[in-house]
């Protein structure tokens, strides 16, 4: 059974609001896409349709937060991390405002909207921002768990959500722990590090590799910031080559984060960064995009095999 993160977001908002009267939702005229309409139906007096004005939505959420409200914002990721970025930086991050950004339709797969709406730089942008918490959950269960944690967090949170369902990674009892690094699969031949919904596809890729006799360790990093860097480095220690894989640009996201950590450590290993090359994508069906841009399980397995065949022996 797999559910889309946006579906579980709408349902969980209703669930959280039942016990927390501070919660309100602000929408940028995308409620039927982001599933904020689920909340609007349940709590019409706590749902504010701001219209197509994302900067103002962030500003009004800040104002509401100063009165004790805990606003959640609903729109596509790009409109927060690009259009409204200065408002997010000034009014949320610099003031520690307890506002939650539910960034929907992030990454490549956004219902064939193409490069205009594909947020492939959000992790790089948001993790560089002081005071911002950045979470990229793997599946619906982890999205819900992260929301439950975020509901009581005192500062701003950026929650990276995907439009479409992926195979479940976690059970419904999953608990989100900020900073935690999760080893989802053991293996000694290569260590694959992933984040967000790409982790689900990396787990599938690991099964394909196993069929070829390559045992991959799969490490999931849902908490881009804060992050227990020491714990992440410990999972990388050893002779296995490290490959990061993300539905995000190879610049500045998870791959950048791992490279920063490794180069500042005593590990001295290479880090191979897989993900979206520095360029724009296109509008196309999900399967086409995942295949063309190297994110499908088959393509991930292929790239890992290719890397393993050319990588020189690695010292730990």
């Amino acid at each position: 059974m797999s559910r889309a993160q946006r579906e579980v977001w709408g349902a969980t908002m209703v669930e959280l609001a039942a016990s927390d009267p501070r919660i309100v939702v602000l929408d940028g005229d995308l409620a039927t896409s982001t599933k904020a309409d689920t909340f609007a139906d349940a709590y019409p007096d706590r749902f504010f349709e701001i219209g197509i004005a994302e900067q103002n939505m962030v500003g009004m959420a800040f104002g509401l937060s100063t009165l004790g409200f805990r606003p959640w914002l609903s729109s596509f990721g790009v409109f927060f991390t690009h259009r409204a970025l200065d408002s997010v930086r000034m009014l949320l991050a610099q003031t520690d405002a307890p506002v939650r950004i539910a960034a929907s339709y992030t990454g490549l797969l956004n219902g064939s909207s193409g490069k205009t709406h594909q947020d492939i730089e959000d992790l790089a942008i948001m993790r560089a921002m002081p005071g911002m918490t950045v979470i990229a959950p793997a599946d619906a269960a982890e999205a819900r768990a992260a929301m439950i944690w975020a509901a009581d967090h005192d500062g701003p949170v950026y929650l990276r959500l995907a439009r479409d369902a992926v195979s479940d990674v976690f059970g419904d009892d999953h608990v989100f722990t900020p900073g935690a690094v999760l080893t989802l699969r053991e293996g000694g031949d290569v260590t694959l590090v992933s984040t967000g919904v790409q982790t689900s596809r990396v787990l599938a890729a690991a099964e394909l590799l196993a069929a070829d006799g390559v045992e991959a360790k799969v490490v999931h990093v849902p908490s881009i910031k804060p992050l227990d860097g020491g714990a992440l480095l410990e999972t990388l220690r050893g002779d296995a080559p490290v490959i990061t894989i993300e539905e995000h640009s190879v610049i500045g996201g998870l791959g950048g984060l791992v490279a920063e950590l490794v180069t500042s450590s005593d590990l001295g290993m290479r880090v191979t960064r897989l993900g979206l090359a520095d360029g724009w994508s296109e509008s196309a069906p999900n399967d086409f995009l995942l295949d063309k841009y190297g994110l499908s399980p088959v393509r991930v397995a292929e790239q890992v095999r290719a890397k393993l065949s050319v990588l020189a022996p690695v010292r730990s």
Partner: protein
Amino acid sequence: MVSQTRVRPSTQELERLAREGRWHVINTVAKSKAGHIGGPLSAMDLLVSLYFDELDIDPGSPVKEDRDRFILSKGHCAIGLYSVLALRGYFPVEELATFDHGDSRLQGHPDMKLTPGIDASSGSLGQGLSAGAGMALGAKQLGRDFHTWVMLGDGEIEEGMVWEAVYSARRFGLDNLTAIIDLNGLQQYGWPAGSPGDRFDRSNPWAGVDLDAVFTGFGWNTIVIDGHDFDAIRAAYAEAKSNRGSGKPTVILANTTKGKGISFTEGTYIWHNGVATEEQLRLAAAELAQIDSIEGAA
């Protein structure tokens, strides 16, 4: 229920406070060797009127729950607000000397995390009206009676986000929100005379645009005043609050003079920011009837 009767200051007292505030602006900036002059001076009479005559606030309890809110959206005019906050008793007047210094609570732009009396951080232009709209919406949601005031500059309202907030404030019926626009007519630089596209008067960024009609068209109440006439300011603030119940936010279009109150800073973009010489400070002190201050400081 005890209702507190506030003693309202006389126009002469407001004028005296505004002179003192203007002196702190030019003197503090001179001592700090950096800062804005023209905007704080054009806004001073509006600010003094708010803080000494209008706002329901308590400097001894800066975050009192039902205080009126004020946001200086044109955050670069922070020294003007700091001067008024100090005179009102939020912090010692002597602390103004730390403006823009390291480790100071008085940053170059207002910081709600640091300075008592600041309801919202600002500095990137165009954001304050949205913040104020959120506060006004929250007040309605909670059934609270306080009023939210936002001051913007006439250059600032070139920012598109302002108009998102203008739209939303009317949609949400925020008649507990008032925008004060300091129409001093001069920006940092504006459009150099004779440059391509310079089809209008340099001394008015909104030449060719009827702002009164624009706000009216957005469904706001509009009030046009001389922003240096204390009686007109007092009446405008009262009218803005009397519009509560109309469902319409109010904008006060306050015509002001950039650099008001000091002969050499008035009406010129050159003093958007600047550091006065000793001689200029002495002249300013004389004009603002603060000659004792400069003698004492010397």
